[in-house]
């Protein structure tokens, strides 16, 4: 409860203005670390909008913003809150969000502002159920993400770093708890070297970030939409635009096709659900289940709508389905008279939305640009709980890097083991949160697995 958290509070996408919300006891101090104005944010100027600039650690200008400090308990979450209004561009938002993490905030978990608001008495009792839903939905999503994460390339690298570090801690702890056993002593040189190796490996992961994984493995993207809205032509158009098709392989089920392609340098693994509805034999239920399963696994949902027709029930259902996950809505057929505007769509699913014409190619270039931002920017809207894994992992890795520096310093200065193990254990927890390996008593279990101790 005590951590100060931050996230982008406005909907994903290019709006005129974007808001970053910081909530928690340190929010004022953290905001002032990155916000400069004639007067810093303060209790005296609570709830007054202040004009100023966001700057990075080196003092470089990032954006011109308005910021407001709302002390708890009279704020949305009931805690001290700072909101920063910046230019709505994705880059500015992401950069400022990143700076809040650098200033010490942790990425808000999906629904966390709402949960805090409820716990602090800022939401009505009738909303308790909705809050519970957010929490349980989050845990399910986290489970899915975790299951996927455990197999990922990042995870295996973090596991390797963690293993090296754990062996070091286990050795130190064995020597501490069994001082008279026949255990080879740990030297400070070895310790510092191991820490340096881990430090280097974490730094390298941070450099690659999650972008690296996507660039290597492709962004899992699902194309969804009613029949005849132009999904297949969109696919073809995208393929025409870039002929870097690697393969065309049937998916796990007969009627799902996976395509690998690269758009503006971003590799995609596209799952086309086009076939789903064409087979009349399938009962409705199965179709719904299938598309849900595909969406569940996708890192991005591309929703295609027909702009020449108003939304029908099926469209609305699809938009509802993608609401809480990363998505991009493409309103096709901009060459025809429009019956559907972006606002209507955003009102339902809140995400990014472009008008384009697959037929004429109008607006197609936006797709590539958007994808590049989506993948190469760090994470995405934290509150929607979609790509937060990325921001979270990055924060955990950065924090691990800091603690490794501390530990290395301690080892080089020959600080006693009891101090040295504090930072090291912290890193173990942080890396364990990424890999899902953080289990109680694992050090003790390892001591007895690796060393013959006890009388």
């Amino acid at each position, binding site marked *: *409860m*005590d951590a100060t958290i931050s996230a982008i509070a406005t909907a994903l996408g290019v709006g005129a203005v974007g808001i970053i919300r910081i909530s928690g006891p340190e929010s004022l101090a953290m905001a002032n670390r990155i916000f400069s104005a004639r007067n810093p944010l303060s209790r005296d100027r609570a709830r007054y909008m202040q004009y100023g600039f966001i700057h990075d650690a080196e003092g470089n200008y990032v954006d011109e913003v308005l910021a407001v400090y709302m002390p708890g308990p009279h704020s949305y979450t009931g805690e001290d809150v700072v909101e920063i209004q910046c230019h709505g561009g994705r880059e500015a938002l992401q950069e400022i969000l990143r700076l809040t993490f650098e200033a010490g905030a942790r990425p808000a978990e999906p629904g966390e502002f709402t*949960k805090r608001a*409820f*716990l602090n*008495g800022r939401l009505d*009792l009738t909303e*308790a159920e909705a*809050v*519970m839903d957010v*929490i*349980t939905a*989050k*845990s399910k999503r*986290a489970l899915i993400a975790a299951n996927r994460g455990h197999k990922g390339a990042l995870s295996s690298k973090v596991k390797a770093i963690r293993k090296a570090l754990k062996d070091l801690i286990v050795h130190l*702890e064995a*020597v*501490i*708890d*069994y*001082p*008279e*056993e*026949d255990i080879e002593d740990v030297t400070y040189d070895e310790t510092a070297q191991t820490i340096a190796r881990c430090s280097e490996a974490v730094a390298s992961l941070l450099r690659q970030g999650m972008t690296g994984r996507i660039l290597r493995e492709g962004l899992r993207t699902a194309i969804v939409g009613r029949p005849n809205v132009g999904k297949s032509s969109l696919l073809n158009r995208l393929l025409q635009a870039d002929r870097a098709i690697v393969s065309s392989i049937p998916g796990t089920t007969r009627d799902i096709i996976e395509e690998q392609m690269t758009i503006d340098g971003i590799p995609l693994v596209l799952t086309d659900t086009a076939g789903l509805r064409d087979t009349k034999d399938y009962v409705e239920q199965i179709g719904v289940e299938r598309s849900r399963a595909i969406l569940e696994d996708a890192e991005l949902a591309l929703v295609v709508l027909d702009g020449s027709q108003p939304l029908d029930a099926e469209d609305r259902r699809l938009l509802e389905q993608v609401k809480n996950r990363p998505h991009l809505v493409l309103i096709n057929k901009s060459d025809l008279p429009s019956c559907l505007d972006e606002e209507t769509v955003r009102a339902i699913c809140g995400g990014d939305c472009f008008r384009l014409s697959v037929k004429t190619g109008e607006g197609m270039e936006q797709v590539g640009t958007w994808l590049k931002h989506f993948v190469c920017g760090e994470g995405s809207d934290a509150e929607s709980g979609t790509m937060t894994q990325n921001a979270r992992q990055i924060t955990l890795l950065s924090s691990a890097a800091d603690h490794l520096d501390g530990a290395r310093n301690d080892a080089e200065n020959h*600080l*006693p*083991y*009891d*101090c040295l*193990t*504090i930072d090291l254990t912290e890193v173990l927890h942080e890396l364990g949160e990424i890999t899902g390996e953080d289990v*109680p*008593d694992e*050090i*003790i279990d390892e*001591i*007895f697995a690796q060393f*013959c*101790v*006890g*009388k």
Partner: protein
Amino acid sequence: MIVVDHYDVVVIGAGHAGCEAALAAARLGQKTLLATLSMDNIALMPCNPSVGGPAKGHLVREIDALGGQMGIAADEACIQMRMLNTGKGYAVQALRAQADKPLYHTIMKRTVENQENLDVKQLMIDKLLIKNGAVQGVEAETGEVFEADCVILATGTYLRGRILYGEVAYMAGPNGQRSAMNLTGSLQEAGLQLMRFKTGTPARVDRRSIDFSKTEPQYGDDVVRNFSFISPITQRRQVPCYLTYTNPRTHKIIRDNLHRSCMFNGTIEGVGPRYCPSIESKIVRFADKSRHQLFLEPEGLETNEVYVQGMSSSLPAEIQVAFMQTIPGLEHCKMMRAGYAIEYDCLDPLQLKASLEHKQISGLFSAGQSNGTSGYEEAAAQGLIAGINAARKLQGKKPLILGRSDAYIGVLIDDLVTKGTAEPYRMMTSRAEYRLLLRQDNADLRLTQKGRDVGLVTDARYDAFTKKRDAIERALTELSRINLAPSEENQTRIVAMGSVPLKSSINMADLLRRPEISYEKLQRAFGLMPLSPIEAEEVDVQVKYKGYIEKQKQEVVRAMKLENRLLPDDIDYKQMHELSSEAMEKLDKQRPVSIGQASRISGVSPADISVLMVYLETRRRKGEEA
């Protein structure tokens, strides 16, 4: 059935847990009975002749700081004292004493026999008497009934104890004493969940048959230290221990005879501790190790028995002799007692509250090995808490519950009642998340005030404590008040202390943070207030570790928010469908007292904790509305 007497508290078992429990209850004014199977075995040390070590030494200091007995007795019975881990940091330094076992027993027997409000009797307790979910007393094999408002189980390894080695197997407590055969049945009838654990001990050999010239002696420290903050001992006769090693020949004999070890031929049902592996386990599990070390430790000054630490075994007696005789120094050793394995019944500690009272049976407390732990110190710590809390219950006071950031005792009990244990539980410093706060040097600063509030800290102890505490505080204040300018006079003094000259003005406390500086040096150079060596060292620790200590204190503050969110008794977890099914089942069974405790139960995820918090808030507001 003859009702003989009525007691406030009856303690079953006079081992390390039982003695502390009985002394605490009696000292807090309760009429107490200590029932032992043998008056000759009070506070018996049936395994190693030592007290303390990392985490265990911390426990002894904590017991002492609260007004318990173990530290004082161990100091008096000590025949060698060492401070371990001196190079590894203040938090993990720990005292370890070799104890004269018969003397330790004698001291403790004298103490309990002379304690006001305390009766000590040799009795075999067969039955726990329970009525309407509350303890009524106990019944002995003689049919004598001792009515009691509280009963503390401290049955050690005696419940259906069974000794095994080689082809020998018989029902017995340690050293072949009578085992308690009937009490188990009575406990099961009362609905208690029992487990069967196993532990073991090595052989004892005749001192005169050992060639010590082939071993490395290990002496005690020259500085005389004590566990107890009030022990008056300033001089001590110390004897060495001796180190030697096994070799491939030893291992071959053991391997060739594994089928005759109870551990390996399936005779033993109980779960043994990884913490005290038998030599058989060590050789099987670490087959590539060419040697294992063993310490030869005297069992006392008035006996020739020498404890062969590291050689715990349940092989037949003649094999134990054969493998020991392959070891340098032990070639001609004469075995006086064979090592053995022992199985026993104990309680699943998940049934207990943090007060060590049973969740369902009012007035029934349990402590020590009967809660699934291992070790004298772990037992004594629980005994003390059980004794205090039995007395407090009778006095209508809230139980004394130490937190994980207060004491190793808190970590120990919280682990037991929250996580349970699948094997005999041993305390280790790596179990404590706030290790830097839970040092052995500050056990009194952490706990003596609490002991005073409870009523176990005598005036003499309290006076000594407050004097020490105030002196330390005064010295710390003085240090932070003095700023040193880089004057010629100061630079000369600083260089004379083996440090580098100042670049600019410095606070005296910051100067003390330099590794080569100590309070004692500063005191002499700058004429600060004089402190005793123990007080001066405490100032050093607090100043030098300040950054890390502050960091851990902040973590404690955060954690306390969850500890302070209490979960009401009447929560129906089965109606909370948002919980994962594993969490629902475990929460329903264990019924944690706080969100903090719930979060430490394995299988309860952060999402489950969020669900609990939302539930609590909803409930609170509904309560307000109603």
